[in-house]
């Protein structure tokens, strides 16, 4: 107890010092507290009344977490959650310290944490989640995560520690995790939508689809609507509800289905969960729209081939002539190996008629990928120069599409919304 009080106090002090030094909300408090008391996380989550929900997977963690938080809050629950992207133990510890009383007590009904798919193996036994949501599993940066089979094995370990696993039935690797679960329920989509969201093994060969399973929540339709889309979800009883999402793309329809199912298992009525979706604003960089010099810039963060394919699908559906800036960095957080660009279906953009630019440390790699897909692009390594050239090409009243990797996104947000990017980087 005394140790926890000390850990919390020292962690907070470290956070204040870090902010004084202009580094924003850093992961430092969590790091410091865990040094003082390595069981900080366990002790701080223990008194949370209805326990913890963990969201993991390759893509969609942040958006799913945001949706789930909105649903639980609409039921009047007090929710603790980790801010965008800080999904390692230190980020979660930092958040818990921030909300704890000086005696180290977290006053909340429920915690919803997104967890990095490589870190979730060690996080799950510490958090003992009531529910774990797995969005999807696809090849990610090989130099960071290793092979996909290894990631799947890590997530399976985590699933063993959860009361209920909420799994994507249309992703064969995720559906397979049901074997490791104490209890399991599935979300998925109608045939047409499922075909628009190829899973990893079908992207890399004639991989087998997941065996059909009865679904607890099903995405029935997803139709573009302005910057977002209208989706309809159904439950096993046959009840159907529609909602307008502020985020586009069938992948976000899947995220909504997963979040609704997790909320329902937590006692939120289906209709209320679906209704809460309408208020959910796009997470940082994930379909977020920013004004820059009077132009609209839409950010589509990409981290891996599956994510880039989703962005490509979205761009292909736009009327011709859209300005697109693809910004590729190769820092540790992006993955140092950019060969994944060759695995995405860039050729699908060949007939789009869009105007392409590339930026970032590996701007020329992206331009080369476009060239071999039959597309021309300008390149600017420098972020400011690239952003200005991109913005100049956006006609008044139109929208430009910015497709960055993680650290490239932070750099752009620093330019678009000064201050934000850096805060994020240290989160």
């Amino acid at each position, binding site marked *: 107890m005394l140790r926890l009080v000390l850990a919390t106090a020292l962690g907070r002090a470290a956070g204040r010092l870090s902010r004084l030094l202009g580094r924003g909300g850093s992961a430092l408090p969590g790091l410091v507290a865990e040094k003082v008391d390595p069981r900080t996380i366990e002790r701080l989550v223990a008194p949370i009344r209805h326990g913890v929900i963990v969201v993991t997977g390759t893509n969609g963690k942040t958006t799913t977490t945001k949706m789930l938080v909105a649903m639980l809050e609409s039921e009047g629950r007090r929710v603790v959650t980790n801010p965008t992207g800080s999904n390692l133990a230190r980020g979660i510890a930092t958040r818990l310290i921030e909300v704890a009383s000086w005696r180290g007590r977290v006053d909340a009904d429920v915690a919803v944490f997104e967890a990095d798919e490589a870190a979730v193996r060690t996080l799950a036994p510490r958090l003992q989640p009531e529910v774990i949501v797995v969005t999807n599993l696809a*090849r990610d940066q*090989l*130099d960071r995560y290793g*092979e*996909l*089979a290894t990631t799947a094995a890590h997530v399976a370990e985590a699933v063993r520690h959860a009361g209920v696993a909420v799994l994507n039935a249309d992703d064969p690797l995720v559906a397979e995790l049901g074997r490791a679960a104490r209890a399991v329920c599935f979300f998925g989509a109608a045939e047409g939508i499922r075909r628009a969201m190829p899973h990893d093994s079908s992207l*890399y*060969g*004639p*991989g087998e689809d997941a065996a059909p399973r009865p679904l607890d929540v099903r995405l029935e339709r997803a139709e573009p609507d302005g910057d977002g889309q209208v989706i309809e979800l159904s439950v096993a009883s046959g009840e159907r509800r529609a909602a307008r999402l502020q985020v586009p793309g069938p992948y976000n329809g899947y995220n909504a289905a997963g979040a609704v199912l997790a909320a329902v298992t937590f006692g939120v009525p289906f209709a209320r969960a679906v209704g809460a979706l309408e208020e959910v604003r796009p997470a940082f960089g994930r379909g977020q729209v920013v004004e820059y010099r009077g132009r609209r810039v839409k950010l589509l963060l990409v981290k891996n081939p599956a994510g880039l394919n989703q962005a490509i699908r979205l761009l292909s559906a736009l009327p011709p002539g859209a300005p697109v800036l693809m910004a590729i960095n*190769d820092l540790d957080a992006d993955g*140092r*190996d*950019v*060969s*994944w*660009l*060759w*695995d995405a279906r860039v050729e699908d953009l060949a007939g789009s008629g869009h105007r392409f630019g590339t930026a970032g*440390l*590996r*701007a*020329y*790699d992206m*331009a*080369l*990928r476009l*060239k*071999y897909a039959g597309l021309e692009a300008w*390149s600017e*390594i420098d972020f400011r120069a690239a952003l200005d050239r991109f913005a100049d090409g956006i006609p008044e009243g139109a929208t430009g599409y910015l497709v960055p990797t993680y650290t490239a996104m932070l750099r752009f947000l620093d330019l678009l919304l000064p201050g934000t990017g850096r805060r994020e980087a240290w989160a």
Partner: protein
Amino acid sequence: MSDLVIAHLYPYEMNIYGDTGNVIALRRRLEWRGLSARVDPVPVGAPYDFAAADLVFGGGGQDRSQLQVAEDLQQRAAAIGEAVAAGTVFLTICGTYQLFGRRFLTQDGREIPGIGVFALETLGGRKRMIGNIVVSTPWGELVGFENHSGRTLLDPGQAALGKVNKGYGNNETRGEEGAVTANCFGTYLHGSLLPKNPSFADELLARALHRREGKVVALAPLDDRLEHLAAQAAARRP
């Protein structure tokens, strides 16, 4: 001229990162010169006549796929050996490169037999060799990315592909990278090797066309400025 036939070995099993980029590069560089290619996928278990191919490509895979592929490759050892002897062009990368050697000894002491096209062995190790790599070869400087834990040891007399200027290569001690036997090339530079190294891509195409036509086929020069910019940027990265 009829299509150049490219056999893509194990396209579903051995495609860990960007390997299709190499096939895209070969195809496009033919098309930009008014030539064309046909790509034959050769997955595990599918019969294939290697005498029909002008150029054979095989990439890297996850450990699980590599075991599956190793067994399948044994069935094709004689046919591939004949094709190499007949001067068919091969480009083997990472996992396929290792299996074109004599054997792979895993860290836990298992032996995975290779097909012995190259006089080399690979030992599984704990340390992963990851990063951008630059290699000097008779076909110019090659820039790529490596990510492997296997350490490959060439027999005396086995020619390497080149000397490592930056990175690890076959193993961290000898400064050699890859192997070459006749028209068969092996390397750890995975993923998009050929798009960023257009001279090497053209060397493979020229050899394949030469063998098929029985005479030197001149390849018209292409504008490779972007290719070189990308390679230079990669060479500067850690």
